[in-house]
């Protein structure tokens, strides 16, 4: 259960190094074993690498070109990347994406933690509660989008209806520039809470029971036990979930497409939405690739820096 780690697994350990006997005597058996090995991994390897490495390199080349997909492409050097820096649309998309990320990631961590703590006990109906909270995980972005438009519809929606009954002012929600992103965050949480909850639930159950018992015997109350004993155990999981959710959040596209299509007045236009529009509506394949690569480099850099800082921070106190 502790297998979810960002570190990409320990380097494949081979207790018996295959290199040595082979170098000594290349027998037909080892040739056959080699062929069998490639027979096993070949098809999947070909598909995965063919659909990542090849287009990945191609996208890099495209990012230095101006191309609409039909007429001949022209090489324009770093012009796309220069445009990227000054593009107002990119700047706005970055702001919207950061806004979504800053709202969504902490909220999803807190919600997941709270739900995991609440669900981590043996009481009646706990199975039903878990089912109810986990089942939205299967809802697609398209389905969630339609539900969102309905629930938050200013005229027919249940949310405004509740506000009306409570004599609170009606809101524009998805039709309001300031509120649209908030609605998308709320509905993302609805669909994604299951994921963080499950991860935290598993982590909670990994906390050694005798440590908690010891705290209790020492007179700690439930609140103290949680924050002083349990919470420190959840540090690595929290870091992992935070990074994972951030990487997901900056790629937001589906739910925006299925609700506001970037509106109102571009208020929910995220980076990937802008990328999609640039490439597949304006047919700027070169510039679109530059946006994709620019975003990739920034997130990669941020991930590496955060991981390094976090490793160092994790090492010093111990």
């Amino acid at each position: 259960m502790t297998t979810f780690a960002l570190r990409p697994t320990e380097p494949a350990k081979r207790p018996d190094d295959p290199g040595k006997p082979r170098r000594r005597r290349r027998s037909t058996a080892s040739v056959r074993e080699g062929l069998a090995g490639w027979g096993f991994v070949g098809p999947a390897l070909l598909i995965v690498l063919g659909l990542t490495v090849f287009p990945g390199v191609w996208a890099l080349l495209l990012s230095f070109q101006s191309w609409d997909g039909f007429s001949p492409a022209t090489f324009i050097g770093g012009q796309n990347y220069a445009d990227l820096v000054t593009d107002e649309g990119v700047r706005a998309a970055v702001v919207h994406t950061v806004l979504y990320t800053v709202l969504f990631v902490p909220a999803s961590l807190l919600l997941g933690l709270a739900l995991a703590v609440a669900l981590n006990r043996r009481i009646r109906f706990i199975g039903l509660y878990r089912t109810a909270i986990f089942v939205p995980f299967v809802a697609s972005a398209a389905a969630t989008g339609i539900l969102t438009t309905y629930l938050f519809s200013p005229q027919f929606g249940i949310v405004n209806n509740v506000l009306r009954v409570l004599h609170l002012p009606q809101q524009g929600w998805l039709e309001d520039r300031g509120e649209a992103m908030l609605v998308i965050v709320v509905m993302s949480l609805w669909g994604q809470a299951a994921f963080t909850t499950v991860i935290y639930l598993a982590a909670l159950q990994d906390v050694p029971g005798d440590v908690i018992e010891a705290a209790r015997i020492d007179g700690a109350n439930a609140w103290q036990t949680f924050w002083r004993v349990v919470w420190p155990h959840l540090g690595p999981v929290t870091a992992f979930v935070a990074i994972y959710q951030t990487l997901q959040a900056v790629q937001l596209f589906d739910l925006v497409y299925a609700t506001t299509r970037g509106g109102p007045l571009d208020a929910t236009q995220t980076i990937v939405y802008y990328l999609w529009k640039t490439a597949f509506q304006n047919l700027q394949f070169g510039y679109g690739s530059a946006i994709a690569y620019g975003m990739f480099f920034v997130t990669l850099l941020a991930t590496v820096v955060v991981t390094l800082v976090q490793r160092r921070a994790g090492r010093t106190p111990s």
Partner: protein
Amino acid sequence: MSTETQVLDTPLRQGVVTASRADGTVRRRRWPFSPWHLLLLPVSLLFLLPFVEMFLTSVEPASEINRFPPSFIPTQFTLSGYARLFADSDILHWLLNTVIVSASAIVSHLVLCSLAGYGFARLRFPGRTFGFLAILATIMIPSQLLMIPTYVMFARLHLVDHLGAAIVPWLASAFGIFLMRQFFLSLPAELEEAGMIDGCNRLQVFFRIVLPLARPALATLAIFTLLGSWNDLVWPLVAINNDHAFTLQLGLTNFQGSRRTDWSLLMAGNVVATLPLILLFLVAQKQFVATMASAGLKG
């Protein structure tokens, strides 16, 4: 994998409330039921609310939906939303398309990823480490980076606007290979060695001994592939513009433009697209939870 499926059903005696309950001398419980119900019940209902609204609205007449002020509980029942859905749209065809995409994705994923995972875990061949590292590296590449060239590539292969365009990216995945490799590494090798001594070749060992043991991992992979391929929106959106090759998700978002205010039809479409997964979730909740837990590996 099997521990993952079990672990969430066996909460240890360590919850906050349990802790205070054990020393009953300090704090005596007055509630006839756990106070956590007061939190969990409303939260659960809130999480169910969108689905409840979806089902209710799909059987509500338009007159009721569009009434102001809106009512919380519908008083009339009609199937006219479903009738319009099946009469005016190709929803059954889109459902079939999605089933084809997901079924191909799952079969191909299970076969290719388990073969490759086994090869990387157990067989020795030149280039094994490099091949596996290459697979791991591709996990870091975000899909939107590959979208444009993949689209151009598929266009040249005349795959665009065909269902094949939606299927090919789901034939195998780095995550699937990784997941299966980790699982096979956790299996004891003795059984396979015994099989080899008894005269099985590698493939026979794989199909007769290893795969039956791999059922939990295969279930995880199947659910992961099903959820991903069934719910995928952005790639079909890019690669398919021909409504004959639409998937369910594409059809749904298309309705949003064309049938904007026909809520019962929209919700009926939503039910058709979502109900299969909801039912499957109810039947195989443990496996879904295990899949969510291992999806964390994908990072």
